[in-house]
């Protein structure tokens, strides 16, 4: 058999000739061994079992623009992605560093704006549509704006990770991190006995503690709620899931009202004061008196109470200015400016199309670049040069020329791949990683992440709205030696 050197970094094995155990990365060795002995049909029946269970639990999402209203499952892959303790240390330190700097930036940009005065950030950022003048001069508890942040990471080689983007508004996906884990433990308990996998189940508790810590009303037991747009929102399952796991109310805009500089919810026992709102509604819809007047989802008067300190919103209003793609470019400089540290995680090299040179380069190399709308999200309004047809390239070229400042361009990254169960068997598919950084009392993350996988061969787009799936992410515990087969057998004997 010819040895095939993969074009992309493969998370499991550096050498794709599957029969040879050399070339399998150390942390995957035991798994690789196990996988070799599991027949394909058995994996398939596990996959089907998972699908059935997910349907029963109702872990479904709605797709915008599809009229049949059918609830769809996000494809779940039964093969995990594994990260070593050292890799995780690096990624988590880097993510925390980044989120700390971003929170400091948000405080700064809504107060003294030192970063602009220092000439590190252009003043044009204040004209960004995600900058909320309503927040200027407003003090938020502990100066935390992004209580929940999702940092999208990709990998291109053994040692090279990049931050693709920061999600600081209402990042979603953490329920998949938790549900995928639960599913894997159910499907493959034997692997969990064999692998020292760090647990993630305490995420809701950590989240709740952080949310309680940012209450600014002087109460002993702050009332925290999750505010959802409702059952027809694509992420409704997650809203419900988190509320349930934290043991708090899941409310909709219509359940809340404002009176005497306080927010109340309507209950069967009359109005009850709310201290902290974990809101999963965008800024634009949160208060029809201030933002989108047609919003039926929000709470009239909420922002005024918020500005006066009568309630805490998590995340804060106006965080969008910090995860905008125009701001992204400046995050490494931000880290140096606010923390006096060197960034631990690198940005993807980015061309700003508002600059003439960058624009010229981009237009000349469109077929090899990824072009993104500055304010787009979720994989909508994006061009993947190498995968685009001639016609698509031309169309995008015109769009860029008509409004260069609305776009940025990045080299097409050779995203790492991870073995994934597909119709033809096990094949490499591109993956990314979104750990969730929680801030409030402390700045932490649980050792796990949402791993998204592009199920289509060769595709680099992992978004669920574009047919992406998810995988469980195993972070291996610190300093635990990988058990050999013999040790496992011994352990089993001892259990008996």
């Amino acid at each position, binding site marked *: 058999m010819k040895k095939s050197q993969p074009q992309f970094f493969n998370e499991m094995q550096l050498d794709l000739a599957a029969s040879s155990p050399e070339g399998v990365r150390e942390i995957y060795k035991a798994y690789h061994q196990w996988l070799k002995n599991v027949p394909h049909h058995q994996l398939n029946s596990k996959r089907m079992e998972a699908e059935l269970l997910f349907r029963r639990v*109702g872990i479904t999402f709605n797709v915008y623009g599809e009229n049949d209203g059918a609830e769809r499952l996000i494809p779940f892959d039964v093969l995990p992605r594994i990260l070593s303790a050292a890799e995780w240390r690096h990624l988590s330190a880097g993510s925390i560093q980044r989120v700390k700097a971003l929170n400091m930036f948000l405080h700064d940009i809504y107060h003294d704006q030192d970063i602009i005065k220092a000439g590190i950030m252009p003043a044009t950022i204040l004209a960004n549509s995600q900058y909320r003048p309503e927040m200027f001069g407003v003090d938020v508890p502990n100066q935390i704006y992004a209580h929940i942040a999702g940092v999208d990471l990709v990998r291109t080689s053994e040692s090279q990770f990049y931050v693709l983007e920061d999600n600081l508004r209402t990042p979603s996906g953490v329920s998949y991190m938790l549900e995928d884990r639960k599913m894997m433990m159910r499907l493959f308990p034997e692997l969990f006995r064999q692998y020292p996998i760090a647990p993630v189940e305490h995420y809701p508790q950590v989240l709740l503690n952080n949310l309680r810590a940012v209450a600014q009303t002087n109460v002993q037991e702050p009332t925290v709620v999750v505010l959802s747009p409702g059952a027809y929102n694509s992420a409704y399952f997650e809203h419900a899931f988190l509320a349930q796991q934290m043991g708090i*109310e899941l409310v909709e805009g219509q359940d809340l009202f404002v009176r005497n500089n306080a927010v109340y919810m309507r209950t069967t026992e009359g109005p009850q004061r709310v201290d902290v709102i974990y809101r999963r509604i965008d800024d634009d819809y949160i208060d029809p008196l201030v933002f989108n007047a047609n919003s039926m989802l929000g709470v009239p008067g909420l922002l005024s109470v918020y500005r006066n300190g009568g309630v805490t919103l998590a995340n804060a209003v106006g965080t969008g200015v910090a995860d905008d793609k125009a701001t992204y470019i400046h995050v490494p400089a931000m880290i140096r400016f606010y923390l006096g540290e060197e960034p631990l995680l690198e940005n993807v090299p980015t061309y700003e199309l508002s600059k003439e040179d960058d624009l010229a380069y981009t237009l000349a190399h469109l077929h090899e670049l990824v072009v993104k709308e500055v304010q787009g999200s979720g994989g909508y309004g994006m061009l993947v040069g190498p995968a685009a047809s001639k016609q698509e390239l031309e169309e995008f070229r015109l769009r860029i020329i008509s409004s260069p400042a609305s776009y940025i361009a990045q080299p097409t990254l050779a995203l790492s791949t991870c073995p994934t169960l597909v119709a033809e068997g096990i094949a490499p598919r591109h993956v990314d990683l979104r750990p969730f950084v929680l801030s409030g009392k402390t700045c932490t993350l649980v050792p796990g992440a949402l791993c998204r996988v592009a199920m289509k061969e060769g595709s680099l787009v992992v978004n669920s709205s574009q047919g992406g799936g998810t995988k469980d992410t195993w972070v291996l515990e610190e300093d635990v030696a990988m058990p050999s087969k013999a040790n496992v057998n011994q352990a089993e004997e001892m259990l008996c």
Partner: protein
Amino acid sequence: MLSRTADHLYWMARYIERAENMARVLDVTYNMSLVPNAAESEAALWLPALEISGNVEAYERDYFNETQQEYTAADVIHYLAMDMNNPSSIYSSLRSARENARAVRVAMTSETWENINSLWLEFGQFFGQDLSQSGLSEFCDWVKARSHLFRGVCFGTMLRDDAFSFVRLGTFIERADNTARLLDVKYHLLLPEQEEVGGAVDYYEWSAVLRSVSAFQAYQKIFSDTIEPWRVAELLVLRRDMPRSLHACFDEITSILEQLSSSRAGECKRMAGELHSKLRFGKMRDIFQRGLHEFLSDFISANNKLGVEVHKTFLSIS
């Protein structure tokens, strides 16, 4: 708890109960149709099923045309079981139950939610089946079993808080309504001219009524005698140990209202207490003297008013 949450829980339970009762009516009617000469015509057999659910006019509007003006088994079964346009068909009830559950899945245990969600997923297996040809009994059994399972999972897993109380309240207000309607229609139809009863057909009819509320064996056990209409009525109205009787429903309703932690339950308790005392201290002879039909109509209306009051006090968002 949130008013909206209470509202969804209450209606979720009502819709499940409604589906179960509809299945009971369908099942006994179908079984009656297998008894030779049980009724003079197909229509005489199936019309009451429509009357119990108060659906005759809507049915005639949707199913009658110039050439077809009969109440056929196939049509009535489809209308009551599967018709998406009939808001009280089993299909619609189960769908509404599941939609209400989905909106407040947080407020119930995951077992409860998964139970309702899988109920809805399983329901898909009956789509496209012509139930009037075969499989109706299995279908009705399935609906009943799922309803039992629903109550069981609520009872076995939910915290005894207001959420649980609103689920139970919905169940029993709906059940009281359904039992009263069933009895009213059947009694009305079976005694057209105040005639003495006791014929063979009556036996089948009344045993069908009993079976539809799972009371046939109870009747035999309590009375061990021929089936007499007034005894059936007594069993379904005044016997508190019959779990689908009006009295049993109001035992539950009054005790649930007492358990609610809200201080706002005053008027609901008064209304429920008034109805409860009629069932508790009423005598069958007096009820018959005034007329069972009048008694049941009054009951249905008072039970409805209680439902409206529950809504006003706890559930509506104003």
